[in-house]
């Protein structure tokens, strides 16, 4: 067999992983897509970045990435956070792949903790970095036991937990990593995205892939698949965001980061999605003054 594309820096294979590893991950990905929301165990490799830094997402991206892809990497919604920069640099180094910060230009978006505000399309794949793939782990840490619960679709424990929350606080106290039911069958962790982002997963045109490196699990949500946040008839799921507008672009609908500006209680809100925010600022700068007001 020839290895014409023994690409890359320092003798590593294209996209770092060897071909056997890629094939193993690819097989896991196909089964994950075929069984939406089910966690498929895979032989995760040690990566040159630490566990917790996105090794699962990186392995998934490395297994699907090709030379024609355009890669966007975000952490907390931002392209310029240090870990996002570091992962983007990793792939430009080992795969020579083109990076972008523009959501609309990307074919693959690797993310930690956010789904972009700009709706994703059929031409895109989003790869989530997942720290704890097991949605039941706070209620039942034993994998042997949760595996059985998934096999039986026995999710009563989670319903009880949410209901106790409501009884005690009047609300579900889970604000991120809010559990979802996929295709009406599997309870799934959406990764630690804010609950605000959960509705974006429902019937998303893009393919959604999830990689948990340390826990050695891969799972997926195919396009247009039903993803329901757990709720109750009398307490329907309601996503929340900070009650305010972005100080930079004026958006009243995007997810906001709270920024403390001084030690006297001063604060401002800005979009967590930096690309969305910048595009809005650019559009506002280009538009006549009257339209700018409408945009805000």
């Amino acid at each position, binding site marked *: *067999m*020839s*290895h*014409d*594309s*023994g*690409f890359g820096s320092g003798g590593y*294979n*294209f996209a770092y992983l060897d*071909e*056997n590893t*890629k*094939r*193993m991950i*690819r*097989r*896991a*990905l*196909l*089964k*994950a*897509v*075929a*069984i*939406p929301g*089910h966690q*498929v*165990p895979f032989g995760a490799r040690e990566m040159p970045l630490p566990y917790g830094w996105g090794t699962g997402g990186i392995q998934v991206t490395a*297994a*699907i*990435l*090709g*030379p024609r892809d355009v890669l966007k990497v975000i952490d907390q919604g931002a392209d310029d956070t240090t870990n996002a920069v570091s992962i983007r640099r990793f792939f430009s180094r080992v795969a020579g792949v083109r990076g972008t910060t523009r959501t609309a230009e990307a074919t693959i978006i690797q993310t930690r903790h956010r789904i972009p505000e700009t709706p994703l399309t*059929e031409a895109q794949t989003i790869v989530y970095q997942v720290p704890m793939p097991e949605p039941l782990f706070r209620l039942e840490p034993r994998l042997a036991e949760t*595996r*059985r619960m*998934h*096999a*039986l679709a026995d999710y009563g424990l989670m319903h009880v937990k949410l209901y106790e929350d409501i009884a005690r606080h009047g609300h579900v106290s889970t604000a991120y990593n809010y559990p979802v039911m996929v*295709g009406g*069958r*599997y309870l799934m962790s959406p990764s630690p995205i804010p609950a605000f982002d959960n509705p974006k997963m429902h*019937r998303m*045109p893009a*393919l959604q892939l999830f990689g948990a490196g340390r826990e050695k699990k891969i799972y997926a*949500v*195919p*396009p*247009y*698949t*039903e993803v329901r946040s757990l709720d109750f008839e009398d307490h329907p799921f309601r996503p929340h965001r900070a009650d305010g507008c972005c100080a930079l672009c004026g958006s009243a609908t995007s997810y906001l980061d709270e920024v403390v500006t001084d030690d006297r209680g001063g604060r401002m809100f800005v979009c967590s999605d930096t690309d969305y925010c910048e595009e809005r600022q650019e559009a506002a700068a280009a538009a006549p003054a009257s339209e700018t007001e409408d945009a805000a």
Partner: protein
Amino acid sequence: MMQPGFHDPVLDAQSGFRAVLEAMSRPGRVQALPPGLTPPAPLQPATAAVLLTLADAETPVFSDAGTAAAEWLRFHAGCPLVASPAAATFLCVTGTPPALEEIDLGTDEAPQDGATLVLQVAALREGGALRLSGPGIEREHRLHVEGLPEGFLAARAALAPLYPRGMDVILCAGTRIAALPRTTHVMEG
């Protein structure tokens, strides 16, 4: 002489995989695989490319495609070939598939162990008589398949109540593929 495998094992496998992933993610949408493979008969390029992309020493393959094809697969994919359908991760079928009860459908705890049936048919195109719905499909995809084995769709449909256990199908014809993961509901006419 043995016909060659992938021209570029790294990039051909990558583009092959993306086509399979796209097919599995959007059941019934027909994907084109990169041309160029000249596998021994009766294997067609798409069937061969799918197996070279996914099979290796860790995946036992059941094949009904004859000795030349088996040798070619063994040499280029390095996969063990098995005589029992139940022991196979991939089934390479060019004729009549084995009885579906004989195939590994995984378990409720490990449904991912369900086998993948790589089924070679005469022709594939979008539109047509089969109406597909389920995950990956916005409303309905229509698919035209020529040369589907008699009774195959009914046998496949009979597995649906076993979900999440099940079998996933990759249909191959020429250089084209389309997939029917276990979640896809198929109606005829």
